[in-house]
């Protein structure tokens, strides 16, 4: 009952937010200076046509405009775009009129998802135990080493790390791991490492903080007073309650990771969403630009919803609202 209502509310919120993002994004691109049909989009032939036969050129542009609905009033265009997005009817891009966007997405989305989810999973699997370790060994050399390391890890952006990895495995020690392309398991290793380093650091640091806090709590003392073995005190009482806090950072961390994926894909030349986006935006390929943002938003918001549900499972005090 509560769950259904909660889900309904959240889904409405997601639809409204996404519509707003798509609408605002569309308007911003629409009002941007310059034409939509650049040489990069349409090929060199178009600029030659502009010189040789201006009338035909204009006719051609008009036909394009009506094809993409660009000659309608702005408000109508926005409405249509939002509606098409929500119904997953994306049409074709300017650049690749022959392939429906949905087909391009079908290829790109799984790739980016593997990278992002892989990076998050790695962050949790490594970060939580390291954080617990640092908290238990508080104020020792191990703790300061882990803390400093995670600070450095958080500060170095994923794309800089990606470049360093390319340098390392491509220039200095070539042949160990592939540094570009996509298709084999090996090709996923370096991008995921680049993406997750910052996350591992963040999760470590955060887990450490909340563990230290949890170990200080009265209920931990109660558990000790009951004679509960130390290992269980740490796992069932301290860690279990810290996880509640750690889960809250998973949402933001995932959002950040998804965005980092866009950058890292560029450096490893991986044909994911980032590649689509990086082609679409500078060239003002409206359908592609908006669609890729739309899909990314969906991913992030879906993850946030999942985190909220998980949070509810972990903390009985939280009521869904």
């Amino acid at each position: 009952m509560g769950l259904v209502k909660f889900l309904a509310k959240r889904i409405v919120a997601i639809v409204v937010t996404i519509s707003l993002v798509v609408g605002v994004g569309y308007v911003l691109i629409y009002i941007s200076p310059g034409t939509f049909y650049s040489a990069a989009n349409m090929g060199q032939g178009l600029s030659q046509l502009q010189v040789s036969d201006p009338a035909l050129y204009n006719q051609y542009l008009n036909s394009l405009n009506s094809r993409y609905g660009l000659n309608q009033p702005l408000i109508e265009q926005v409405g249509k775009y939002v509606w098409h997005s929500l119904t997953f009817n994306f049409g074709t891009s300017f650049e690749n009129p022959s392939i429906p966007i949905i087909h391009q997405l079908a290829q790109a989305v799984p790739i980016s998802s593997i990278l992002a989810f892989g990076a998050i999973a790695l962050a949790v699997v490594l970060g939580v135990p390291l954080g617990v370790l640092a908290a238990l060994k508080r104020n020792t050399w191990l703790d300061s080493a882990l803390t400093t390391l995670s600070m450095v890890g958080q500060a170095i952006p994923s794309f800089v790390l990606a470049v360093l990895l390319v340098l390392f495995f491509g220039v200095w020690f070539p042949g160990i791991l592939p540094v570009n392309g996509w298709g084999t398991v090996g090709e996923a290793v370096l991008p995921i490492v680049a993406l997750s380093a910052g996350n591992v650091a963040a999760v470590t640091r955060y887990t450490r903080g909340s563990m230290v806090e949890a170990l200080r709590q009265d209920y931990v003392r109660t558990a000790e007073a009951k004679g509960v073995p130390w290992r269980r005190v740490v796992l069932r009482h301290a860690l279990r309650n810290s996880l509640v806090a750690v889960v809250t950072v998973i949402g933001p961390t995932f959002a950040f990771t998804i965005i980092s994926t866009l950058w890292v894909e560029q450096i490893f030349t991986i044909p994911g969403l980032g590649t689509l986006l990086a082609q679409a935006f500078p060239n003002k390929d409206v359908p592609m630009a908006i669609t890729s943002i739309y899909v990314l938003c969906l991913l992030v918001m879906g993850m946030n919803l999942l985190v909220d549900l998980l949070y509810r499972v972990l903390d009985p005090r939280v009521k869904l609202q």
Partner: protein
Amino acid sequence: MADELLCVEDLHTEFWRGDGTVYAVNGASFSVAPGETLGIVGESGSGKSVSVLSIVGLVRGNGQVTGGTAKFMGKDLLKLRRRQLEDIRGRDIGMIFQDPMSSLNPTMRIGDQIMEGMLSHQYTNRKGAFNRTLQLLDEVGIPEGRARFRSYPHEFSGGMRQRAMIAMAVACEPQLLIADEPTTALDVTVQTQILVLLQELQQKQRMSIVLITHDFGVATNVCDRIIVMYAGKVMESASVAEFIARPAHPYTIGLKRSVIEVGTQAHQLKAVPGVATTLMAPPHNCPFADRCQFVTDRCRAEVPELRPLSEGHYVACHRAEEVLAEAGATAVEGATADVR
């Protein structure tokens, strides 16, 4: 005394803080006989909680026990390894704390929290623990045990939480129950309920209780013996009868005069001047000297040791006899003033 259940001698505990070392417990000694209720009273910072937590190895943060012995059932608790202490905690020594909300794990069902201690000590098997938990819930006055078993702490009222804490502490029928300000966070009407419950359980299980409190009314109504702590030292130790009739330490007398209860007349009140301070160095004189109206040069130069005044009445004051005599005189004077 060989028949004591717990015998603490010359306990020292220090805390390391950014700005120096805090001497929280400075040579506290006390003992608990089987079946008796010992009250430890004192103001905040007197070391009453820390000294008890020190014994069971639960001093937190940067605190450390730096000396003393604590013999419990023939073993010195301060010398045990963690594993050995874990065996004793919960099984032989149960504990309840001041704030029942923060003392309960918010993400764990009440029933599971009660069972946990029993299962850790292999006191019984899972099925047995479940049945015993239902029985315990009933004993501590939590109705509908089966439903309440599955509740979380935040679904309980303050009084109910403290009852659950008590169920947890007595689950393994410990020899000793340590109650650290168990009623301070509760309303007065609930306070009495909790104290009555503790008395009932004590009768039933024949355990000793160490009751830490700052409330003289609670201590004098519930305890058999009372010790007064100040600045990490035991200032006075006496049976409750002696304590009520012949307090001999100026601090005890001051505290008793500070107690405001229904019926207290304004002229009976007399403030102890000053405030208790934490010691940043080991005491080299009587720690109460600055606030004491009986102070002499000796008090400022020499630490008074806890010494017997009469049978079972110990006091750490150089001038206890004079204090006692004078207090008796003023009591008579006060009584005559009342009559007038």
